[in-house]
């Protein structure tokens, strides 16, 4: 039966709705104006950055823009009165807008180290029509074709360029990442406000703004990890029956998708699932109706993911263990040396181009995270004692994800280790999932606590402190990730992956491709190699102790090039071209490496000059080499190996030719 409301009550309801709408519009307009102004400031920061190697103004414009764009949106999301659907919509806006820094950084072509590798891997799939082709620059990616295959299909179907298709795919992954964190937090048991705050907190991790928005397998995989965990958690929360089965299937599909896309994040996914499964198996935390079935579901899905990742590594990407193990092993040994005092460790921000206040914020983000995490733990304790968080799946899930989040703090120690720093940073994208859930609970509680202060001064002070902490996390999270040369455009910077691409290098690579065709074996340095192996479509050498191509460069004039085994390897490997960046003899690379991370550490002399100084002109006199190209900064030599025994004319003889110049 439909109960008709009284006309007066209906009028009052309509009046109230109209007033609410009237009050809402100024807020909507103000937030929109802030977002537009923020975007304009970000654009301004990039325009400023173009003309200087590094200027504080670009950082100020950038963070003013980001704050102006995001903080008002965050404030609306954090309001208790905001509806769940509006929060979701605002999260979508943040997801799209937070892609702007990366989109503006390289709107037309890849510039990050890994992006070149993935561009080439995608090109190879399109060109060969096959998966698992040997990969250039980062060979391990050949075994993980998820991203490349998806991009190649989009290219084939839409006719977009590889870069355009990659941008569309990564943008969608980026937005889906925030939605995934919010869904995961909802699945754990947080309300829509805390869940949205978890997504906000997650975007403060070091990888969110730049690293996980690059065209790289991790950018797709991290979103798959989050959605795998969301499906995994929904499967645990759901009652036995069709719903649980549905989420089980989705977990299986998504985690297998992770396994074919990226190694490290899938391993981390397995560890997170394992942690949650252990938490669900603790009777003290999880005992409730049906907890055994929920734990069995968790263990089954964890086992499946483990089998998927191990099976994929063993069957399709056997080089993964050799690729990953040095990072962990060397990182641990360096950390041990650091603790024992036998090593001084890595100096943070030593070659950084960013201003001092970004460095402080980078340390500050750990402190902010610690404060919120501690508050979150205290809150959980309080809920447990008050009976609000009784033993059951919710408590076990919170315990599991909180444990994952707390792993962030010990992992920060690895930042002081040269080998472990990269691995630690990569782990944060996953550990921050748990940390975001933990901190969001406390953030929601702290916001309520601050809003309920009776005195305006106390209320504003408390909210101001929370805003300052949010801003610190926003700045510091990104500052703790990539260096300014990656984040901002600018003039050419020798030895930086992201600022080494110049029109001259591009022209040289295209000249080479047009002249000789693709897939020639080429010896060159790291920064020239990125362009040669991607858009140049050549196969560049992977230097190592067993293949020390740097010895060609370091040999002193007058001395024979070698060692002999290197020439033998070059000959057997059909290496025919040497591309020399002349600045290798004058400049010290920003990243500190000329070829690869495993090169000898003595290429920069104590006086700050490179060892290659004055040693490059010798190539002009090497008789088994012909210089076939020279531009302002690059020289290309054809290596005629094996070296013949041809005698050369020394005494003068009459030999007259003719130079003809024509258009």
């Amino acid at each position, binding site marked *: 039966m439909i109960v008709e409301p009284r006309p007066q009550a209906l009028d009052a309801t309509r009046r109230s709705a109209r007033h609410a709408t009237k009050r809402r519009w100024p807020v909507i307009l103000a937030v929109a104006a802030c977002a537009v102004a923020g975007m304009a400031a970000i654009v301004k920061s990039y325009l400023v950055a173009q003309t200087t190697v590094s200027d504080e103004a670009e950082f100020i414009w950038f963070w003013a823009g980001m704050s102006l764009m995001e903080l008002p949106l965050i404030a609306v999301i954090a309001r208790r009165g905001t509806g769940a659907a509006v929060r979701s919509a605002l999260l979508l806006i943040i997801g799209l807008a937070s892609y702007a820094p990366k*989109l503006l950084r390289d709107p037309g072509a890849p510039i990050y180290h890994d992006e070149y590798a993935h561009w080439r891997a995608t090109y190879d799939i399109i060109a060969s029509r096959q998966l698992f082709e040997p990969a250039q620059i980062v060979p391990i990616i050949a075994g993980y074709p998820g991203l490349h295959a998806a991009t190649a299909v989009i290219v084939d179907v839409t006719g977009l360029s590889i870069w355009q298709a990659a941008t569309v795919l990564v943008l969608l992954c980026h937005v889906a990442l925030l939605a995934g964190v919010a869904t995961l937090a909802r699945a754990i048991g947080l309300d829509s406000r805390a869940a949205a705050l978890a997504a906000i907190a997650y975007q403060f991790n070091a990888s969110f703004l730049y690293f996980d928005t690059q065209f790289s397998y991790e950018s797709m995989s991290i979103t798959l990890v989050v959605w795998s965990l969301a499906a995994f958690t929904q499967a645990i929360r759901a009652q036995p029956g069709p719903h649980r089965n549905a989420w089980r*299937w989705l977990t299986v599909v998504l985690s297998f998708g992770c396994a074919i896309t990226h190694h490290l994040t899938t391993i981390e996914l397995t560890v997170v699932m394992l942690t949650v499964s252990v938490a669900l198996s603790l009777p003290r935390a999880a005992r409730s109706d049906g907890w055994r079935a929920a734990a069995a579901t968790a263990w089954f899905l964890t086992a499946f993911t483990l089998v998927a990742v191990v099976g994929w590594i063993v069957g399709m990407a056997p080089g993964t263990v050799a690729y990953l193990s040095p990072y962990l092993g060397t990182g641990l040994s360096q950390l041990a040396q650091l603790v024992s005092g036998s090593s001084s460790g890595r100096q943070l921000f030593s070659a950084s181009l960013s201003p001092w206040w970004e460095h402080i914020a980078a340390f500050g983000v750990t402190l902010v995270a610690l404060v919120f995490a501690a508050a979150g733990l205290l809150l959980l304790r309080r809920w447990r004692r008050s009976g609000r968080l009784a033993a059951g799946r919710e408590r076990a899930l919170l315990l599991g994800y909180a444990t994952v989040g707390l792993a962030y703090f010990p992992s920060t120690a690895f930042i002081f280790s040269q080998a472990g720093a990269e691995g630690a940073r990569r782990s944060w994208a996953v550990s921050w999932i748990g940390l975001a859930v933990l901190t969001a609970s406390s953030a929601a509680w702290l916001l309520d606590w601050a809003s309920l202060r009776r005195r305006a001064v106390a209320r504003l002070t408390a909210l101001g402190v929370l805003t300052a902490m949010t801003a610190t996390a926003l700045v510091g999270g990104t500052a703790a990730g990539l260096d300014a040369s990656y984040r901002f455009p600018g003039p050419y910077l020798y030895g930086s992956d992201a600022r080494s691409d110049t029109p001259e290098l591009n022209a040289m690579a295209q000249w080479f491709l047009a002249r000789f065709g693709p897939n020639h074996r080429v010896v060159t340095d790291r920064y020239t190699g990125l362009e040669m192996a991607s858009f140049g479509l050549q196969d560049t050498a992977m230097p190592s102790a067993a293949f020390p191509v740097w010895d060609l460069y370091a040999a002193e004039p007058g001395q024979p090039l070698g060692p002999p085994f290197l020439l033998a390897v070059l000959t057997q490997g059909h290496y025919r071209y040497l591309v020399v960046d002349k600045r290798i003899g004058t400049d010290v690379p920003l990243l500190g490496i000329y070829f690869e991370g495993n090169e000898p550490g003595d290429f920069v002399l104590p006086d700050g000059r490179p060892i290659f100084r004055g040693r490059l002109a010798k190539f002009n006199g090497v008789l088994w080499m012909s210089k076939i190209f020279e531009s302002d900064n690059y020289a290309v030599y054809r290596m005629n190996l094996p070296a013949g025994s*041809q005698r050369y004319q020394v005494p003068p003889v009459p030999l007259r030719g003719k130079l003809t110049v024509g258009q």
Partner: protein
Amino acid sequence: MSGLPRRPCQPSRLRHRWPDAWPWYLLGAFAALALTVVVPGGPVRAVLAVPVLLGVPGALTLGAVQARRSVDAVAFCALAVMLSALWLAFAALILAVLQVRISGLSVYACLLLVCCVLTAGAARQLRRRAAGEDAAAAWRERADVLCAPDETGASPKRGAWYAVGGVLAGAALLGGGALAYTSAPHQAPAGYTWLAWSGAKADGVIAVGAHGIALPFEITREEPGTTRYRLTASWTGGAKAYPLAAPRTLRVGGDKTVAATLSIPQPPGACAYRVVVTLKELGTARPRSWSINVSVRAGAR
């Protein structure tokens, strides 16, 4: 229950209503993807194809496993996109296993087959739901333990429209920023000049026959303005260089490529000669120079 009066239920104009037949509509949309080949490849085709390609397979998957109603609109769309992206990769993998070449057509055919299976699964789930087969097992999600008492709910009716609004607003913001940045004046990149052989590959020592040889090369100047250059050719013996041809002075304009040739007769003797062509900038305080070289010797060619 809301106090507002309900609108009386109106008969749908569609014979098969969306809630009852959405998998078939989506399958139709995916099948219609083939029609986009008539649109030239690029952004326009992408606008038509990407929503289908990165939406339909995932949405059908959610329908087939009966997870469609367990999440809100934003989560549904995000999950559908990720599952669709995975289906693209899975399709490529399936083709690789079957040793079929990966192309737009083969992937489309594979995905269409997958979508047919998923649609059948989703339709079956719809029929089960309609028949109330799993009504007894239907489970209403309990209120979350940490849920705020005044939580307004995660899936209001208009959630999907809010999500569409959020996407449009975010896309406008992002697109506006990108447009503003790309249309702003940018610093001109540094220019450069190069000198390169353009003829046969310099494989080892080039044999020069009785009629001599012409070695073509090119000078490319990618810089504004015109500059004068001095072009010389020599051969080297030991540490000395001997002139090989009369030097030439040339003017090269901005963004121009000039073709040139070094003609040399058959060199005397059996020894090889190292031939060097040098280009030197004239009229500047710090003149730049470029050189290329090659080895030649007398022999049949």
